[in-house]
Every structure is written in C-alpha cells, then in structure tokens.
C-alpha cells in the first residue's frame, strides 16, 4: 500500500514541478496566479497523501488550512491585479445597487 501512496506522491510532485515551470515562465501575470492556485491544490493533496504515507493520517486539518490560505492568497492577488489596491471599498457601491 505504501508503494501506491509513494507513487501518488511522486505524481503530485511531478505536477507541482510542472506548475512551478508555468509560474516561472509566465508569460502573463494571470498564468502565474493560475499556477499558484494549482500549486496550492497539489500541496493539499500531497499533505493528505503524506499523512497516509507516514501512517498518521489524523492531521488533515493541515490540508484544510492550506486550502483556505491558498484561497485567501489567490483572492488577494486577483484583487490586486484588478484594481492595483487592496484598499478600495466596495461596500457603498454594493449597497446602492438595486
């Protein structure tokens, strides 16, 4: 069984390397964001598999945190790329919408 987990981990590592290649070469900023997002997902999966590989799978909380923070990071990047600032306040404009 460990062999299967190891093979899965290796496959995920290969995918991570591919995503890193995409993040390295770009060319557009959006490509990098997409690579960051994909990389985060792969890390979550890798952590889950690693838990089983080391025989102590009870710490999947870790994987959840990765997913969450990856989401926050991706959103921050997106937000920044669209408006050039984290500070713009949409509350007012959202409220006056019918």
């Amino acid at each position, binding site marked *: 069984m460990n062999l299967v987990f190891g093979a*899965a981990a290796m496959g995920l590592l290969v995918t991570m390397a591919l995503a890193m290649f995409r993040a390295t070469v770009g060319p557009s900023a959006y490509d990098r964001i*997409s690579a960051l997002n994909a990389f985060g997902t792969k890390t979550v999966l890798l952590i889950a598999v690693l838990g089983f590989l080391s025989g102590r799978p009870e710490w999947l909380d870790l994987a959840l945190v990765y997913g969450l923070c990856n989401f926050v990071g991706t959103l921050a990047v997106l937000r920044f790329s669209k408006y050039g600032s984290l500070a713009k306040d949409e509350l007012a404009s959202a409220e006056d919408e019918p």
Partner: protein
Amino acid sequence: MSAVLDALCVVFLLGGTLFTVIGGIGMIRLPSFYTRCHAAGMTDSAGAAGVLLGLCFVAEPLVAVKLLSVLAFIWLTSVASTHALVKAAYARGLRFYDEQPIDLTNKRPQPGAEDRTHKRSGEEE
C-alpha cells in the same frame, strides 16, 4: 472486504494522480491562458476528487469525514478562484493566444490566425 477497499483505493488514487499529471502537462503545453486555466482548473477538481476519495477507502471514519470536508473545500474554492481568475483576465482583455507562446512543438499559429484571436472584451458582445 478489506482487499476490495484496498483495490478501490489504488484505482481512485492512481486515477486521480493521473488526472493531476495530465492537468500539469496541459498547463505547460496548451497555447493560451484560458486553455491552460481549463487544464489547471478542471483536472484539479477531478484529480483532487480521485486522490481524496481514494484515501477515504482506507481511512478511519473520522479521517474520512475530514478528507471529504477537504474535498468540499477544494471544490468550492478552487473552482471559484479559477472562475474569478478567468473573468478578471477577460475583463482586462487578455488575448486568447499569447503573442509569443511557449513553443515546445515548433508549430507556430498560422499567419492568418492572428485575425481570429479575441482582441477586446467589448467587440464580441
């Protein structure tokens, strides 16, 4: 029973891993940002499902619940952020083809292809 579960685990796990690797290759080889996003995002969901469900078959009940919640989380956030990403790129007028694609195959787009590419978000609507 345990053997059946193990076999299911192997099938799902390796299938999911295969999906992610294919997605990774797609992220490298596909010609434009939107297609690459498709590769990254869609196989992401399938790959994550395969790996995490596969692990569920050999996990204790509590761990399986955690695995499923991780899966639900990924399915919500990854899909949402890919959607937002593509939308943001489209709003910024990112072309459907890069001006200089990463050329691994020596197959450049045909000279006339430039005209068919999407130029601005407003024109097609």
